[in-house]
């Protein structure tokens, strides 16, 4: 099975995000970057498919040289090969999707695994954009995956439940937490990743479709009222919720 996992390089979840002086971009200096958590699940799932069906796992990232760090992480987990599609600037989802489309067209994988969402710009768009560009079926936010008679059977999350989806391959999948637990790279994996090659690709990419015009901090919230320190406070709390906040 030819498996591709698309991985993004994002600030870690503890990061304090600062707005740059232009007021519309993020100052990334001093930030610690990680392999986006959902993409880690995608890599894990890719490795499990390879372990079961054979084949190879390619990790792909779109961005500047810095993304190589994240590709190395995927290699250390066990991916066979890594590809960096080079861009200089921050790209919108449409540009990222176009870049991935170009690469995927060259190699024709059986399955492309994405995270459901990058935890930086929280778009949750790229997998479906790529699927439509390639005219392939897609299933997003997958929490369960099986194969039967050359078909893939997935469960995807919907509000309050699941949808069971059956499809042919090739297919685009975005994964949700719960599908599998990502492994930690072993020391051997980390050593091996250092000698695995990272191929670089360049494509002519289109203009952005979506433009950030301003960034700001969310309105800060001041600490509220401590109603009490034991069960005797419950009555007052309920009164406040009912009469003051009017939420019950």
């Amino acid at each position, binding site marked *: 099975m030819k498996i591709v996992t698309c991985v993004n390089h994002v600030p870690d979840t503890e990061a304090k995000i600062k707005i740059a002086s232009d007021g519309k971009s993020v100052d990334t200096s001093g930030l610690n970057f990680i392999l986006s958590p959902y993409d880690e699940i995608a890599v894990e799932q890719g490795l499990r498919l390879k372990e079961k069906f054979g084949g190879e796992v390619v990790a792909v990232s779109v961005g500047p040289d810095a993304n190589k760090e994240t590709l190395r992480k995927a290699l250390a987990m066990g991916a066979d090969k890594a590809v960096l599609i080079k861009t200089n600037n921050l790209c919108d989802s449409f540009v990222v999707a176009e870049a991935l489309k170009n690469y995927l067209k060259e190699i024709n994988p059986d399955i492309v695994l994405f995270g459901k969402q990058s935890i930086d710009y929280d778009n949750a768009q790229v997998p479906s954009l790529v699927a439509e560009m390639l005219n392939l079926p897609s299933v997003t936010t997958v929490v369960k995956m099986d194969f039967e008679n050359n078909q893939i059977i997935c469960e995807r999350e919907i*509000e309050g439940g699941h949808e069971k989806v059956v499809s042919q391959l090739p297919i685009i999948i975005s994964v949700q937490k719960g599908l599998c637990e990502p492994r930690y790279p072993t020391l051997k994996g980390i050593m091996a990743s250092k000698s695995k090659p990272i191929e670089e690709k360049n494509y002519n990419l289109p203009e952005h479709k979506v433009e950030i015009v301003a960034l700001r901090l969310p309105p800060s919230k001041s600490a509220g009222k401590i109603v009490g320190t034991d069960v005797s*406070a419950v009555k007052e709390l309920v009164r406040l*919720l009912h009469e003051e906040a009017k939420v019950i």
Partner: protein
Amino acid sequence: MKILAFAEQREGKFKKTAYEVVTAAIELSNQLGAEVFALVIGKNVSGIASDIGGFGVNRVIAVDRDDLEYYSTTAYTKIVAEIASREKAEVLLFAASQMGKDLAPRVAIKLDAGLASDCTALKVENGNIVATRPIFAGKIISDVIIKSNIKVFTLRPNVFTAGSNNGQKAQVENVTINLSEGDFIARVVETKVGVGRPDVTEASIIVSGGRGMKAPENFKLIEELADVLGAGVGASRAAVDAGWRPHDEQVGQTGKTVSPNLYIACGISGAIQHLAGMSSSKCIVAINKDKDAPIFQIADYGIVGDALEILPELTKEIKMILGK
């Protein structure tokens, strides 16, 4: 100019987000001087279609087919894109629900449109639609514009308020779209929806528990309060990772983003990744033994105390006030 409001339904019932989307479309149309129509897709939907008129839209297009009993990414994409093209819609609004988030990007590609997802506000400035979207899990708020002629937006559930239903009926136009086997290439064969509590992304009240609940069986106390309030049940990652609660209840940066009217956090410390998923809740209540827990910094009301003792009392007291 025309605005298409995608009115999501499942099992023959409009979702609450459908009303939110339609109301947002009407507000936008007032600012842009545009026309609004709603689109509803599914099996046996012609009957309910006109009800959307109660939220101020006069015209609704219904695509009603037996083979649309379940949501289908590719078939829905084709239908929405075809209707949007025929109608020359320039703005398309969807809910940022599991269906809307799955569908909107594909429709955007078909229409060569740009897409801003999970928006929390839309406003018109100098003729441009400026969309507000939280990024970095709400640590930063961005304003974005879409540069293509056709623009697609998905709206975060529970943030846009739905107008109240005035009982008016919309004019229903049943439209036929040719679909072939190939349009159902990935096929939903079954949906399993739990009965009872609402999903955290849709609930207007959430009762959430963390490691401070001490043991999985203590979540019964959370569930009892939730049921009295008609609330959803949420959990911190610590509670999920411990195997106490299912993944789909996790709230936070690697869980669900929620904006209920009331969020009650019990035995949750308030780690930055948890706050990321719930800090936009309108009213936050924290119950925690530790007065220095960070959750108190964003809570509107707090009780410093043992959740296991406080929850039963709280349930009792709320039952009383609700007359249950």
